[in-house]
């Protein structure tokens, strides 16, 4: 600690500190990216892609919940809309290249997100959560009724096709690097959004909405935009997932899926950038590993236990707790 109290020095010290932190972060991110690039040679690519899709879904959700303070209980609707739209288009129009199908799915989810946002954004707290739940239930009803979704049988045999009409996505490695590229792009986008002036406003809305209003911000407009971006990314996750698995099913539209993404975000650490990614990885792995092993019949109760434990003991989630620990002991 510097002995002098010259404000300029302090400012400089803070900036210096910031730079070191940034560099540390960059290095950490770099290591993570390298790990992701190497991962398919060690782990099963389809499983990795599943994790990336859910990680993107959780990142999307966290933008709204963790950074803006809006708990949506209806995000399954966007995941499913993206998935079904992409699946339908790629199955029925062979002229479409894969990325066009994915873009169309994302676009429709975005529009749906706008509709949701306009109907729900004026509601507060639990009422907001419940309106989004209600709207998602209506979307679920629509998917059950629609012939094209295949009802509970699901939509099967969606062709992966060729990216830009060139790269064969039937190949798991090609598919994986495409999913990884999209994921990283979205992650960087969210990172930019959060650290931008716009992101700062979102955070101030979360902390103290009346204050943000009194500062002259059109709070609702900021919230709507955050909702729409979040829905778009969730839709993109759904679109990618339907291409990876070559199927789309009603599970994605069910309210349990909306609950699952909350769990992922919470376990990983809401309001942190890396949290939802870690959370999704954790939850998908736990569910998968448990459903294979001796505890096969006990997945639900164990997930319930994780919920309870997280809320009681690790409210900041894995990443949040690590950050706290680092700050306290090493900072």
């Amino acid at each position: 600690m510097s002995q002098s109290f010259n404000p300029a020095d302090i400012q400089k010290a803070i900036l210096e500190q910031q730079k070191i932190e940034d560099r540390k972060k960059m290095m950490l991110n770099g290591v993570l990216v390298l790990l992701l690039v190497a991962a398919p040679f060690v782990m099963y690519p389809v499983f990795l892609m599943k994790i990336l899709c859910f990680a993107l879904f959780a990142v999307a959700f966290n933008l709204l919940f963790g950074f803006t303070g809006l708990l949506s209980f209806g995000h399954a609707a966007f995941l499913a809309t993206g998935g079904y739209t992409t699946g339908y288009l790629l199955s029925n129009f062979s002229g479409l290249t894969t990325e066009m199908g994915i873009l169309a799915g994302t676009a429709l989810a975005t529009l749906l997100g706008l509709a949701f946002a306009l109907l729900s954004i004026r509601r507060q707290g639990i009422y907001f959560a419940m309106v989004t739940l209600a709207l998602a239930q209506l979307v679920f009803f629509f998917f059950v009724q629609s012939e094209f979704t295949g009802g509970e049988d699901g939509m099967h045999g969606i062709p992966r096709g060729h990216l830009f009409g060139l790269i064969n996505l039937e190949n798991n490695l090609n598919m994986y690097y495409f999913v990884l590229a999209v994921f990283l792009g979205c992650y960087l986008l969210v990172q930019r959004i959060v650290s931008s002036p716009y992101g700062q406003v979102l955070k101030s809305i979360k902390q103290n909405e009346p204050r943000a209003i009194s500062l002259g911000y059109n709070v609702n407009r900021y919230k709507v935009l955050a909702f729409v971006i979040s829905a778009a990314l969730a839709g993109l996750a759904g679109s990618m997932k339907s291409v990876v698995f070559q199927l789309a099913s009603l599970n994605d539209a069910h309210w349990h899926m909306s609950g699952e993404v909350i769990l992922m975000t919470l376990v990983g650490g809401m309001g942190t950038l890396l949290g939802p990614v870690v959370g999704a990885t954790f939850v998908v792995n736990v569910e998968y590993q448990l459903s294979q092993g001796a505890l096969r019949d006990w997945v639900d109760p164990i997930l319930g236990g994780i919920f309870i434990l997280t809320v009681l003991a690790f409210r900041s989630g894995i990443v949040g707790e690590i950050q706290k620990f680092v700050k306290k002991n090493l900072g």
Partner: protein
Amino acid sequence: MTMMKKLLTTAVASAMMASGAQAAISNDTVKIGYLADMSGTYRDLAGPNGLKAMEMAIADFGGKVNGAKIEVVSADDRNSADVASSTVRRWVENEDVDLVAGLVASSVSIAVSDILEENDKLGIISGSAASSITNEHCTPNHIHYVYDTYPLANGTASAVVKEGGKTWYILTADYAFGHALEGDVSRVVEENGGEVIGTLRHPFPTPDFSSFILQAQASGADVVALANAGADTTNAINTASEFGVTQSGQTLAALLLFLTDVNALGVEAAQGIQLTTGWYWDMNDDTREWSDRFMEETGVRPTMVHAGVYSSTMQYLKAVEATGSDDAQTVRKQMMDTPINDMFATNGQIREDGRMVHDMYLAEVKTPDESENEWDLYKILRTIPADEAYRPLSESKCPLVTSK
């Protein structure tokens, strides 16, 4: 390179032809994956006890086939096509699983058979009801073993119409499965000179059926048919008994009812209901002997799915033994060529569309006076011959059949 390829092909081909050659069982291990709903809606009809049935079959077979180990892996599909799909992909692509069995939810079965076709492995579906599995969704890589919606509708509907139930009111689960069943029932009813005077599609799941039962009563139809499954069916039957549907002269026909459902309902509420089943534990000495052993293991009587899992595992192992190979097409062909005669089926036959056709049974739930214990539930009224029960190949939309 070409030389290499040629050598390889010849090697594979000769291995396939040389029946009984041990080398053709990959890794000297036959690996079977049991995938089913272990914790959700369909848990009791297949679930953990289905795995027990499979293990019983392997033990009865001797634990080895042609000297090769038999290994079992198992997983909960959580009724999710995603989970099922990532599990099975890993099983067949990384863990050399040769056969995937169990399989209940239709979305799971269809997703899994797509993957098996892609990787040329074998699947035996025992739990699913959807007849589309061997129709528009047929593949050369799976077998549908126990039952499907076609004989369910066929057996029950034609019997009930012939007994004088001319006008029908159908309560349908508003789902692909319910729609298919409703369509099959309507066709059978009309073919036999009956008439469907009303259908009602209810959400899945519906906790309270009183409103729907009331409408069925008001319709004045002779027969109230339930084209749904699981908790919906048991709830509907309970409510029908409460509202006196049968007392007011209407017949109740449940199209898909498992032994576990009837056990849960009890004979008081379910008595007199007619249903079609692929198997019943108390039919003859063979079924009773096996069911007693099953009960020792699990504490319950087996459903037709449990028996089907046992029988199909046995048939599979016999085919592996006979051909000395665990190659999907070799084994499937052998299974198709061998009629199935065991405690589950008499002269069962696997057709080219993958449908295992066997006799089905029209049963009636016993009255409280007739029933001696909680599992003494059915009277078998009639045997429905295999060729009458299942969808004839002439009506098939399966490319394996139509392209011939």
